[in-house]
C-alpha cells in the first residue's frame, strides 16, 4: 500500500514539475509549484525526515512561493 | 667569495641598465646634464668592458652566477675571449653613437626617452654577450629587443609605427622560439650552461631537431637571415641614424653570437655535422648572401640599401659559422667585428648626409662629396672595406672566410663570396661616384668651409672609418688574433 502511495506521490511530483515548467501562465505555474512543494514535504515525511519536511513546507511552499507571487505581481503574469 | 674580477661582466651589464634610472631623474633638471651623463655612462661601460681584458688574457674565462634570480635557471655571467671581443666592440660603437647622437638627435626631439632606452639596449646587448647560460642570454636578448623597439619607432610616424609593429611581432616570435628551445634543452640536459665541452644535446632525435629549429628561428630573426629578414629592411631605415647604426652594426650580431653559441657550445660541431644540419645553415647562408646583395642594388633609399646590405653581410657570418672549421669560424667572428665598424660608419655617414640635406634618395646626393668631404671620405673607406678591397678589414674577413670554405671543401662558396663582392661594388660604388661626379663639371668646387658638420658628428665617423683601415692594414691585428683564439676555443682545438 505504501509502495503504491509512494509511486503515486512521486508520479505527481514529476508530472506537476513538468506542468509547472511548461505552463505559459506564470500564476498557474506558481500554484502548481506550491502543490509540488507540499507533496515533496509529504514524501520527505514518509522517508522519515520530519524536520526537513517541515522546513521544505515552510520554505518551499511558503517563502519561495510568496516571493514568486510577489515577483509576478510586480512584473507580468503571462509569458 | 669570488675574486672581484669575476663580477666585472655583471658590472658591465648592469651598470648601463641601472644607470637608466638616475638618467630619468637627471633629465628632469637639465638637458645638458643628461647628454653628458649619457656619454659618461657609455664611457664607463666601455671602460668596464675594457678592464676585463687582463683577466681574460690570463684566466681565459671569468664569471659568476646568481641562482636566486629567476629560478630554476638563475642568471649567470661569463666572459671568454669571444664574449669580451664582441662586448668591447659593442660598447665602443655605442659610445661613438652616443657622441654622435648629441648633435644628430637635437632636432629629433624626445631625447628624454631616447637616451635611457639607448643605454637599456646597450645593457641588454652586453648582457647577451656576457652571460653564461642560454636562459640568461634569452632574458637579455628580450630586454635588448624590446628596448630597441622604442628606438625604432622613435619618429612615431605612421611608417615607423608600422615597421615597429612588424619588428615587435617578429621579435616576440623569435623570443618564444628561443624559449621553446631552451625549455627543451633544459628537459634534455638538465642545465642550460654555456661552456666548453658542455654539450646540451648529445644525440640526434626529434627533440633536438625541434630545439635546433627553434634556436635557428629565434636567433635567425634577430640576425635577419632569409626568410626571417622581413622586419629588417623596414625597421633599419625608419630608426634614427645612430640607432640604425647600432641595430645594424651591433644588435644583428647578437643573433649571430647566439647561433655561434648554439652550434659550437649547445650542440657541438660534431653533432651538427653528424646530423647534417649544417647543410640547412649553408643553404640559408647562400640564399641570404645572394638575396641581400641583389635586392640592395634595386634600392634607391640610401638607408634601405644599407639595410639590405646588412642582410647580405649576415649571410657571410652565417656561412662562416656553418662551415664548421677553424678558419670559417675565425672569418665569421672577425667579420662580426669588422662589419660592426663598417656598417656603423656607413649608417652614421648616411645619417650625416640626411641630417645635412634632409634627403634620403641616393640620386639626390649628387655632388655632395664637395660639400661634405669628411663624411663622404669615411663613407668611401667603409664602402671599399665592404666590397672587400685590400687593405681594408673587410678584405681580411672575406679572405679568411674563403680559406674556411676551401678547407671545408666547398669552393662554390668562394665563388659566391666573389660574386657578392662584385654586387657590393655595384651598389656601393655608384653612391660614391654620384657623390663626386654626379654633377656638372662647373659645380665640382669644394665648398668652403668643407663641412658644416660639428665635431660631435664627424669625430665618431672618422674614428670608425679609421678602425676599418687600421684593422685591415696593421700587421699586428689584435681582433684577428682574438677571433682566431676564440674559434680555436669553440672548435675545441687545444693549442
Amino acid at each position, binding site marked *: 500500500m505504501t509502495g503504491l502511495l*509512494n509511486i503515486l506521490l*512521486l508520479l505527481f511530483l514529476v508530472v506537476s514539475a513538468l506542468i509547472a*515548467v511548461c505552463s505559459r501562465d506564470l500564476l498557474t505555474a506558481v500554484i502548481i509549484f506550491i502543490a509540488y512543494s507540499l507533496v515533496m514535504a509529504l514524501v520527505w515525511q514518509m*522517508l522519515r525526515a520530519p524536520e*526537513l519536511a517541515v522546513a*521544505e513546507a515552510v520554505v518551499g511552499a511558503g517563502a519561495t512561493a510568496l516571493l*514568486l507571487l510577489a*515577483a509576478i505581481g510586480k512584473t507580468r503574469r503571462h509569458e | 667569495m669570488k675574486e672581484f674580477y669575476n663580477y666585472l661582466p655583471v658590472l658591465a651589464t648592469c651598470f648601463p641598465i641601472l644607470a637608466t634610472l638616475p638618467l630619468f631623474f637627471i633629465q628632469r633638471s637639465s638637458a645638458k646634464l643628461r647628454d653628458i651623463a649619457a656619454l659618461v655612462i657609455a664611457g664607463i661601460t666601455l671602460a668596464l668592458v675594457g678592464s676585463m681584458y687582463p683577466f681574460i688574457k690570463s684566466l681565459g674565462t671569468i664569471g659568476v652566477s646568481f641562482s636566486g634570480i629567476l629560478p630554476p635557471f638563475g642568471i649567470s655571467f661569463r666572459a671568454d675571449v669571444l664574449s669580451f671581443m664582441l662586448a668591447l666592440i659593442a660598447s665602443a660603437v655605442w659610445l661613438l653613437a652616443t657622441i654622435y647622437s648629441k648633435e644628430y638627435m637635437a632636432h629629433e626631439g624626445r631625447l628624454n626617452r631616447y637616451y635611457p632606452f639607448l643605454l637599456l639596449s646597450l645593457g641588454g646587448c652586453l648582457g647577451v654577450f656576457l652571460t653564461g647560460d642560454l636562459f640568461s642570454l634569452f632574458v637579455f636578448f628580450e630586454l635588448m629587443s624590446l628596448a630597441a623597439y622604442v628606438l625604432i619607432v622613435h619618429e612615431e610616424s605612421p611608417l615607423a609605427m608600422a615597421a615597429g609593429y612588424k619588428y615587435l611581432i617578429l621579435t616576440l616570435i623569435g623570443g618564444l622560439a628561443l624559449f621553446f628551445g631552451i625549455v627543451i634543452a633544459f628537459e634534455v640536459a638538465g642545465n642550460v650552461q654555456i661552456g666548453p665541452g658542455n654539450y646540451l644535446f648529445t644525440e640526434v632525435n626529434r627533440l633536438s631537431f625541434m630545439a635546433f629549429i627553434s634556436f635557428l628561428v629565434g636567433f635567425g630573426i634577430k640576425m635577419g637571415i632569409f626568410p626571417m629578414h622581413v622586419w629588417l629592411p623596414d625597421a633599419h631605415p625608419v630608426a634614427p641614424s645612430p640607432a640604425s647604426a647600432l641595430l645594424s652594426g651591433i644588435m644583428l650580431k647578437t643573433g649571430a653570437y647566439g647561433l655561434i653559441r648554439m652550434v659550437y657550445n649547445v650542440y657541438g660541431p660534431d653533432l651538427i655535422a653528424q646530423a647534417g644540419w649544417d647543410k640547412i645553415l649553408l643553404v640559408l647562408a647562400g640564399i641570404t648572401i645572394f638575396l641581400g646583395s641583389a635586392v640592395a642594388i634595386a634600392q634607391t633609399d640610401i638607408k634601405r640599401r644599407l639595410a639590405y646590405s646588412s642582410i647580405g653581410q649576415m649571410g657571410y657570418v652565417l656561412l662562416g659559422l656553418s662551415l664548421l672549421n677553424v678558419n670559417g669560424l675565425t672569418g665569421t667572428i672577425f667579420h662580426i667585428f669588422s662589419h660592426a665598424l663598417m656598417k656603423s660608419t656607413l649608417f652614421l655617414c648616411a645619417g650625416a648626409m640626411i641630417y645635412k640635406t634632409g634627403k634620403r634618395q641616393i640620386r639626390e646626393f649628387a655632388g655632395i662629396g664637395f660639400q661634405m668631404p669628411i663624411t663622404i671620405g669615411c663613407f668611401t673607406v667603409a664602402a671599399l672595406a665592404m666590397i672587400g678591397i685590400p687593405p681594408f678589414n673587410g678584405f681580411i674577413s672575406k679572405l679568411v672566410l674563403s680559406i674556411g670554405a676551401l678547407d671545408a671543401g666547398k669552393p662554390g662558396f668562394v665563388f659566391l663570396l666573389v660574386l657578392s663582392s662584385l654586387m657590393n661594388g655595384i651598389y656601393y660604388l655608384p653612391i660614391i661616384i654620384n657623390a663626386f661626379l654626379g654633377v656638372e663639371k662647373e659645380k665640382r668646387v669644394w665648398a668652403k668651409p668643407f663641412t658644416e658638420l660639428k665635431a660631435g658628428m664627424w669625430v665618431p665617423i672618422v674614428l670608425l672609418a679609421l678602425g676599418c683601415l687600421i684593422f685591415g692594414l696593421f700587421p699586428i691585428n689584435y681582433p684577428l688574433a682574438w677571433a682566431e683564439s676564440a674559434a680555436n676555443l669553440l672548435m675545441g682545438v687545444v693549442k
Partner: protein
Amino acid sequence: MFDKLLANLHFLAAMLLFIIGFYTMLTDSNLIKKVIGLNIMDTGIFLFFISLGYSGGPAGGEANPLPSALMYGGLAAAVSLTAFGLAMIVRLYKYYGTIDADEIMSKRGEAE
C-alpha cells in the same frame, strides 16, 4: 526487475526532477520560469539525498548529522538565491519592460 525499479523509484524521480529543473534553467527564456526550475532542480537533489540517508544507501546509513545539515544549508541557499534572483528580475523588468531573456538580449542589441 519491477522490485528493483520500485526500490530505486526515489532515485529515478529525483533524477527526473533534476533534469526537468536543469533543462528549464538552461533553456527557458522566461526568467521566472528559470527560478522555478532552480527550485525544482534543488528539491530533486534533496530528495535524492534524503532517500539515501534514510532508506539506507548501499554503504549502510549510519546516523550521520551532516547530510541533513547539508539539506538545511541547501534549502537556505535555494531560498536566498530565489529571493535575490527575483529581486534582480523585478529591477530588470523596470529597465526593459520584459522578463524574457531573449527579448532582453534583442533590446540590448538594438540599443547598441
